[in-house]
């Protein structure tokens, strides 16, 4: 089971900050996102906004990056600290 985290506006809109997902045959972030999009609203509008970044095991990654069931995969909006 991969750990999926959602931060900031994303976590608020999706009404969850973390969940466990069995990746099965999903091997890239994009495939995981497609799986999440299948849930419909509010997932679809949040992920289709184009303003979602991804980190795998706490390193910034891309949507074509490979993922596995032991990973911590985090989705969040562009950062606004400082």
């Amino acid at each position, binding site marked *: 089971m991969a750990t999926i985290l959602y931060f900031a506006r994303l976590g608020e809109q999706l009404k969850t900050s973390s969940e466990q997902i069995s990746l099965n045959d999903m091997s890239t972030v994009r495939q995981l996102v497609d799986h999440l999009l299948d849930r419909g609203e509010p997932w679809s509008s949040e992920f289709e906004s184009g303003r979602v970044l991804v980190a795998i095991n706490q390193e910034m990654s891309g949507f074509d990056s490979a993922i596995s069931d032991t990973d911590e995969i985090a989705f969040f909006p562009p950062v606004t*600290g400082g």
Partner: protein
Amino acid sequence: MSRISVQEQDFDVTTELQAICDARTDIGATVTFVGLVRDMNLDDSVSGMTLQHYPGMTEKALHKIVAEASQRWEVQDATIIHRVGELSPGDQIVLVCIASSHRHDAFEACSFIMDYLKTRAPFWKKEMLKDGSSRWVDARESDDHAAGRWEN
């Protein structure tokens, strides 16, 4: 050598500056940047702010930014403190303190670290407005441009 802290508590600039210079005689310059919570944003009155972060990744990202600055300039020591949780206008939010042998390196490293922090460290601000509403702050294109100027 560097000190990175993500914390709810406030910080004291003088204490941090003394800690960085303590018992050293090889430091020729320190540059300190302190970011504060402003009471206005996008023409609206801001009454407060909540800062969220990604525990673990945020600290890693800050260490990486300091390491990158140290490769570009001579950085003898660095302290970054970033506050999270509930903050009010006028509160200190971030401290970057750089010690170097020369002022040029200290100025540049400090500026670079702030530009990268604003675009790469996972923090998110949510503003509370005077009318009682709240909103997540959107990332600014100007911050991307500021970070981008170090790429050349």
